[in-house]
């Protein structure tokens, strides 16, 4: 092989590496903003969801812990004190006149006070709360089983999702579009550990953790577990609601299926 050819090949390789590193460092940044890249990357979410749904039976429970495992300092994330006037008024009153409404695609719309919710079938569980940011805290939750609520309201045939409308606002537009909301599918809705908690660590659920009612969906990440739940709506599709992706964080690009 002649010296010239060797140099050429080296030059080619060197240019190749320089180009590759530029594409990688600068390119990934730019790629992140392209719609088709987002769509390709999102296909990973579908694969993850389908795989985990196949691995998880409806009976599979998230691990439950003992009293000794409780975190002494359970972090309150997101909203910790909603400023919605109606909510503030209810909070002052200890939520005595507050009612949860259950509507949408149900045979019997419900309006239930905290006392009525406390009288329904409950479940107590000590579980680990995993935040999408990476930290975990262990807490004890007592609440009404969502399945008990749904048995009473009776879902209509077309209902596929439950949407949780909340009192707190995380956005900054100053409109209803700032309000927190979340949604889950029916498999999670009827899961044994899916409850609307009104107690945490043996006491009335405190405001920073979502009083009067907080959703617990133990096989998914913390952002699915909406705090300050005011209204539950059964729907056949998430497309028409707000950003159409099924939740406040989902509309900002987070996965709807938060099992990972």
């Amino acid at each position: 092989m002649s010296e010239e050819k060797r140099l050429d090949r080296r030059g080619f390789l060197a240019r190749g590496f320089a180009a590759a590193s530029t594409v990688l460092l600068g390119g990934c940044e730019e790629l992140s903003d392209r719609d088709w890249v987002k769509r390709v990357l999102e296909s990973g979410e579908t694969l993850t969801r389908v795989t985990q749904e196949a691995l998880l039976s409806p009976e599979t429970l998230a691990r439950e812990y003992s009293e000794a495992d409780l975190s002494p300092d359970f972090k309150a994330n997101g909203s910790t004190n909603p400023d919605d006037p109606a909510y503030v008024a209810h909070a002052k009153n200890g939520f005595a006149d507050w009612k949860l409404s259950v509507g949408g695609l149900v045979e019997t719309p419900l309006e239930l006070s905290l006392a009525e919710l406390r009288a329904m079938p409950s479940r107590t569980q000590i579980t680990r709360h995993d935040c999408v940011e990476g930290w975990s805290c262990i807490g004890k939750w007592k609440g009404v089983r969502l399945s008990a609520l749904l048995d009473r309201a009776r879902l209509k045939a077309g209902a596929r999702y439950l949407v949780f409308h909340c009192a707190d606002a995380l956005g900054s537009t100053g409109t209803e579009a700032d309000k927190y909301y979340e949604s889950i599918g029916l498999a999670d809705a009827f899961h044994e550990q899916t409850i609307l908690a009104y107690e945490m660590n043996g006491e009335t659920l405190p405001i920073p953790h979502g009083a009067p009612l907080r959703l617990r969906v133990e096989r998914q990440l913390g952002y699915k577990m909406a705090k300050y739940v005011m209204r539950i709506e059964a729907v056949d599709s998430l497309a028409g609601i707000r950003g159409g992706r099924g939740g406040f964080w989902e509309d900002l690009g987070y996965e709807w299926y938060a099992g990972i």
Partner: protein
Amino acid sequence: MHKGEVIYRHSATVRITHWVNALVLLVLLMSGLQIFNAHPALYLGEDSDFRNPVMAMGAVEEGETMKGVTTIFGYAIPTTGVFGLSGDADSGYDSRGFPWWSTLPGYRNLAMGRRWHFFFAWLFLMNGLAYLAWSFASGHLRRDLAPSRKELGHIGASIREHARLKFPKGEEAKRYNVLQKLAYLAVALLLLPLMLLTGLAMSPGMDAAFPVLLDMFGGRQSARTIHFVSATAIVLFFVVHLVMVLISGVWNNLRSMITGRYVIEPAEGKS
């Protein structure tokens, strides 16, 4: 002109999975640092003891200025400009774990970091399974990577040769030496599978399906810490790997991992 014997060193499977893995690991590392930056602290056990992290990066106020501090087992190390507090000319210093140039995307976006990470985690899994399945089936693991008793007995000599930057020639160069074998085995059979398992142990869905993941690593936060340490070990392997590739005949090495062909230099004393 005698240039030495040309052998076919790396099979197509090894070459393709090697480069796919290299790209995939780079994306996983950078998107992983983006995810880490959402809560730049590590803990042991199931939950986060916020007051006693094993390691934490952050910014603290010191008089008029901010300083980046990394705390490891309670020891605070000033790391302004790299860890805890860093930035670029445009936006100035900003409190963040790892600097912008090491994360994907460079700007703060946990959602995008997660999308990159989990998509490439699937590629990592498929590529890794393809490599391992082929390696077992073809005998690559047994033939090329498993060190013999004799080789293990000469490990001291091999370390001495490497320290003097003397690399095998002739017949000896046709095989991986014992240090290479051990390093590649450790990465392929220990570190990379460990990355996958500790990654899965952080998933609440996978923990419900396989609670043994939590027991294997001593809890979710321990798994997250091991994930980080193991990633660091892979970066260190990469640095050593790169240095070795560079000083033991960079073009010959690169060509062999691209075309498969590798030139054996004649052993000394022979022609």
